[in-house]
Each structure stands twice: as structure tokens, then as C-alpha cells.
């Protein structure tokens, strides 16, 4: 069985241990939810998987040569780019503008394409962030609290769009509410 394998991952920040000998296996092409209390190290784990952080000890395999898309906990939109430019900027595809427009439409952001981040509500920014992550694509899609700031209707819609675009991809999501994903087959990785 192919997948991402972590063995005895340890990570500390300023003497505070965040991850302590964490081992897990995430199967390729499946949806895995990472759950756990606040401050337990879920985001740190995502950052290690994405390569933004290095573990102090332990090793993680199965990421070699994989393209990873990351929806950060913060939207991290470029403030000087419009919503559609923020989405297009991560792609080198010739039809990126058309794809971005479709994504915006799917996420009910048709009229917001030319707005700048400071003109968007929190929920809108989040959906632009989701669109950007999907636009970038990749083999592994990492989502850190993907539905933060979304109302239930937009949450359902966003979930549907994400799962629709990530068929057969490895999706790893940190969420405080695993129930949102109940209609999709998933594994749960609980950090305690």
C-alpha cells in the first residue's frame, strides 16, 4: 500500500514540545482528517508534511516528487492582486483565467472576481483561498481549517467543490468538525 509514512516525528518550538514521537500512515488518493485539540500541533504537522518545517527527529517518507497544494489557516491572499489574479498567479496554464472563473463561479463568487482582498468578506476571502489551492492542484492537497469563516451553506458548497476537484487525490485536512466530511469516505488521524 502506497502512502505517506511518518515515524517518530518530534518537533519543539522554544523548548515547548509540539509533536512527540508521532507516527502515522496516510494512504495516497484518500481523504484523511486530522483532528485534535487546539494547540496540539495539527498545523505544525501539516507544515512538516508540506515541507515548510523540518522535524527535529523522526522521518517522513512518501512525499518525494509530489506536488503539494496548501490552503493555509490564514487566507494569505496577495493584497495587491484581485480575487481572480490571486487565483491565476499560482498557475502557468494558458487557460488559467477561464479555469479561475469557473472555480469562482462554483464557489458562488461570480461577481467578486475583480475585487481586492480588503473588499472581500472573511468568508469570500476563504473561498478565494480555496479556489487558489484547487487552481494550483497537485498530488497532495493540504487544507488547514478549510471552512473557517464560512456559513453552513457556503461550507457545504466549498466542500462539494473541493471533493469534486480532488477525486483520487490525497487530501489531508485539519478540521475541528469532522462531521462536515461525513458524506465522504475518510480516515481520521487523531492527535492527542
Amino acid at each position: 500500500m502506497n502512502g505517506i509514512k511518518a515515524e517518530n516525528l518530534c518537533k519543539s518550538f522554544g523548548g515547548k514540545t509540539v509533536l512527540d514521537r508521532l507516527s502515522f500512515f496516510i494512504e495516497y488518493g484518500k481523504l484523511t482528517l486530522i483532528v485534535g485539540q487546539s494547540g496540539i500541533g495539527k498545523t505544525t504537522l501539516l507544515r512538516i508534511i508540506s515541507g515548510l518545517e523540518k522535524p527535529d527527529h523522526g522521518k517522513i517518507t512518501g512525499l518525494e516528487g509530489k506536488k503539494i497544494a496548501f490552503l493555509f489557516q490564514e487566507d494569505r491572499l496577495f493584497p495587491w492582486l484581485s480575487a481572480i489574479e490571486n487565483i491565476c498567479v499560482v498557475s502557468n496554464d494558458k487557460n488559467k483565467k477561464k479555469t479561475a472563473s469557473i472555480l469562482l463561479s462554483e464557489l458562488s463568487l461570480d461577481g467578486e472576481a475583480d475585487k481586492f482582498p480588503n473588499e472581500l468578506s472573511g468568508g469570500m476571502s476563504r473561498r478565494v483561498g480555496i479556489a487558489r489551492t484547487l487552481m494550483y492542484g497537485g498530488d497532495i492537497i493540504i487544507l488547514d481549517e478549510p471552512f473557517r469563516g464560512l456559513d453552513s451553506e457556503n461550507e457545504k458548497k466549498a466542500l462539494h467543490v473541493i471533493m469534486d476537484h480532488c477525486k483520487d487525490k490525497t487530501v489531508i485536512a485539519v478540521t475541528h468538525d469532522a462531521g462536515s466530511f461525513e458524506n465522504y469516505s475518510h480516515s481520521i488521524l487523531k492527535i492527542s
Partner: protein
Amino acid sequence: MYNGQKNTKIKLLPKPAVIALTASVTAALWVGIWAIAAFAIGIELILPSPLSVLKKLFEIIKEKDFFITVLFSLLRVLGGFLIGAFFGLLGAFLSYFLLPVKIFFAPLIKVVRATPVASFILIAVLWIPSTFVPVFISFLMVFPIVYGNVLTGLENTDILLIEASKMYRFSVRKKTMFLYLPSVLPYFASACITALGLAWKSSVAAEVLSVTKKSIGEKLFLSNLYLESAELLAWTVVVILLSIGMESLIKIIAIQIKKITRRRYERDKS
């Protein structure tokens, strides 16, 4: 609730009109003080009256080489300014990405900032032809300001966006175009406003000390040499007017740049 007082409306002048009026009155006041001082002294050589300076100003404007003189002085300062701005920008980017470059530039920037401009002019006169001394001095004044401001802008680039650009594997071109340049644009604009005024004044000073041919500085030098105080002040008025004009122009450009980028910069910090 009606309080028994008559509802009176005070008509206020529009803000630009108030500013213009205040400026005119203040200018008139200072010219008046100047006129009184000139009258009290009574020697044109020491302090010419505003009227004689004005007359001289019209005379020099009518001279056939006036516009050439002004144009050459402007070209020199603009040349130095553009070279300084370009290398300041380039130097800041190199220093941001390569620590040795930053270390290399650090003493140079400190020395340039601490050294009196007159020293540089006098040294430059020995090194380079007098035509290029004002260009070199403008460059020298502009470079550290643009370098310092742009470097600060780069160092203040949002770390979260840097990380996002890394995650999305931005190329160097993409990082420059979509991350770093927009981040430093307000810093660069501010630097240009400050630097241009300084470059202009230093450039004229350089023209005076190096007696650059076909320059405002040369005219100032010769007026001083021939004790033509009215002409000296008339050329000074030209320098002031051009300085105000250039500063206004660059401010308009900077405001337009900021207008375009403002809404893009005011991030929703909530």
C-alpha cells in the same frame, strides 16, 4: 430638538481655496518683509528689492540661453536621479538576498550619509569632468535614500506571503513581480520624493562649485562673481520654482502610484 437659536449656516470656502489663500497671504507677507528690509538697507548689492529681482527674472527669462541652461540643469539632475534610483533599487534587492552585499554596502551608505555634500563635490571636481559632477552628486544623494527605503520595504515584506510564494513554487520572476515589487512600491515612491528635492539642491550646488558650463549653477556663480545680486536672487527664484515644480510632479506621480496600490495594500487585518 429646537433650542430657540436661529439655525445659521456658515459658508466655508472649499479646502483648496483656503490653502491657496493662506499660501498667498503668507507669501505676500514674506515678500513685504523682504521689501521693507531691502528699503531699510538701501544697498542693492547687499539686498536687492523684490521688484528689481522680479525685473531681472523677466530679463533672464528673455535671454536666448535661458531655456537651454534650465534644460541642461534639469537633465543633469534627472540623469543622476534615475541612475541613483535604479542602482538604489538594484542594490537593495541584492542586499536583501545576499548578505555579503548588504555588509559590503553598509559602510559606504554610512559614509555617504555622514559626509557633507560640499566635500563630495570638491573631490568629484578632481575626478570627473565638470559637466558630470552634478550628475554624480545627484546620484550620490539619491542612491542611499532609495537603497535604504527599498531595503526596509523588502525587510518588511509579509513573511506569510513569502511562505505562500515558496509553497506555490513561484519563479524568481513571479516572486519579483507579484511579491517583492508591490511590497516595496510605497517605500520606493517615498524615497523618490525625498531624494529628488535633495538631488536638485545638491546638483545646483555642484554646478556652482564645479562651474559647469550651461548650467544654473554657472549663472549663480557668475552673478556672484560680478556682484549682480539681483541676478543671483533671480536665478535662485528659478531654482526654487523648478524645485517646487519637480517636487509637485513627483508627488503627483507618487500619489497616483499610491492610489493604484492603496486599496491593494490596505489589507483586511481582521
